């Protein structure tokens, strides 16, 4: 029983970070109907920008984090301007393929600049680990969960309580209609990509904090795929639930199945779960209920 609570609890904390990754994919998918396959690379870019500010320039965490996120947002905006904007109005498939290309391009650039060795990444956040004797939740995952959840909350507030968020939701539904009513759709897409890459950076920083940062950390970004497909590609709530499901699934498999000799099964389990979910609900658990008029 203690094992179970431990596994579910730590799974949920990691899952919240996956939710944030999923949210970034969903934001971009809703706005431009393209799947951002470069999410892992965006994550590493954000983490390295923060790394430079925090570890190289020794800025205090409270200044380095917002600056790092702003830098990541800027990087996202530049990438959108150069690679995505020329494709607005074209088929979303071409945009998706461009993000695949971007993934390779950014990874190669990062390797040229930073090399392929690991950088030690330790934030030294205040210790808030919970230790009851039987249960142990480490400080890092708890911080990760808190930060991911608050980032999620900020994005939700932005989307559902501000006029810019309303414009983003309108543009997400239909770019042409939004343009006709005076919403600058190109500007909105720029904002969405910037916001999304800032959120990816938060997730990246938290994930790097679990271990080390290297150009190969981008593989973690692929976790976003089962998250959004389980939750539903166009559902923000689905991203939250999907992330938690993937996190819990991973840690349960790690606790119960891996000791049986299935080493590394943890990495595969979310995809098996994904297959099962897609067989039952092809739109994902929370995919939008299409408005059908009779």
């Amino acid at each position, binding site marked *: 029983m203690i094992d179970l609570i431990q596994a579910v609890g730590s799974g949920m904390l990691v899952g919240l970070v996956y939710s944030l990754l999923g949210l970034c994919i969903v934001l971009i998918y809703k706005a431009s109907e393209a799947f951002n396959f470069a999410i892992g690379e965006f994550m590493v870019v954000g983490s390295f920008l923060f790394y430079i500010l925090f570890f190289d320039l020794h800025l205090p965490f409270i200044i380095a984090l917002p600056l790092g996120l702003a830098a990541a947002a800027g990087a996202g905006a530049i990438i959108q301007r150069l690679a995505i904007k020329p494709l*607005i*109005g074209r088929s979303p498939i071409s945009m998706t393929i461009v993000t695949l290309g971007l993934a390779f391009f950014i990874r190669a650039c990062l390797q040229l600049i930073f090399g392929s060795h690991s950088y030690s990444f330790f934030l030294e956040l205040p210790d808030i680990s919970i230790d009851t004797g039987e249960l142990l939740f480490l400080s890092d995952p708890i911080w990760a969960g808190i930060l991911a959840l608050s980032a999620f909350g900020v994005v939700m507030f932005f989307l559902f309580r501000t*006029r810019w968020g*309303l*414009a983003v*939701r*309108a543009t997400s*539904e*239909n*770019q*042409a*209609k*939004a*343009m*006709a*009513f*005076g*919403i*600058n759709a190109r500007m909105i897409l720029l904002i969405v990509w910037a916001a999304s890459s800032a959120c990816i950076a938060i997730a990246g920083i938290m994930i790097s904090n679990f271990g080390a940062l290297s150009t190969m950390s981008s593989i973690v970004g692929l976790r976003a795929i089962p998250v959004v497909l389980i939750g539903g590609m166009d559902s923000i709530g689905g991203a939250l639930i999907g992330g938690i499901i993937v996190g819990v699934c991973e840690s349960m498999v790690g606790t119960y199945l891996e000791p049986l000799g299935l080493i590394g099964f943890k990495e595969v389990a979310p995809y098996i779960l994904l297959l099962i979910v897609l067989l039952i609900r092809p739109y994902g658990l929370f995919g*939008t209920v299409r*408005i059908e*008029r009779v």
Partner: protein
Amino acid sequence: MLSVENLRVVYHDVISVLNGISLSVRQGEVLIIIGANGAGKTTLLRSVAGMIDFYDGDIIEGDIKVGDSSIKGLGPTDIMRRCGLTYVMEDRPVFWYLTIEENLGAAAFSRWDREVRKDMEKVLTYFPPLKSLRHKKAGYASGGEQQMLAIAMALMTKPRILLLDEPSLGLAPLVTEEVFGIIKRLNQSGISVVLVEQNAHAALEIGTRGYVMELGRIVLEGKAEELASNKDVREFYLGSGEKSRRSYRDARRYKRRKRWL
């Protein structure tokens, strides 16, 4: 106040849709543009509203002017802000997954004044059916309600010129009448209207002037009453010619003749 001069528009670099079209909209009038499918009516409105780029079209010749300044090449947001020109696309351009109130709010995005809230109430009094639905998703509203919402959204942008693309599309005759009544009232409150319609009968009733478009050109121009009583228009758009057309070949001859006008 709005004039289009010898406009030529090409889609995807090869498909020529507007072949040198010129027209003018006067202050405070309801201008009707009628024409068959594929005549280029929607393309004309898209070009004027600055949205032709989005559909991969190019203005290769001619100019669009509001007053004395050219608006060719400006984006839709700029055109709306500078000239008070709002384009209501065809097929009820409302955001299905937003509530009616959010729809109105989204349409007011280009405005920065503090009166948005007040205007929303004012606009809703124009359209009583929308008032009771204000917290419902627009996708669940009926066709007539959606068309009213689309016009209400256009009003939220405080237009001086309103471009309406087939507001009667898919609406029952009674609802069409209601929508046209609203358009007439808006016009009386000082908004110039350009109305593109297939429903020539109803449109010519509320219009002051009209153009007939065919194959990307203007083939006829005149006062609404004149057009409504024009023999050719009666035969081909109002479906009440003196003698019924014998075969499709005659229609084509009509077209060939008109092209030289």
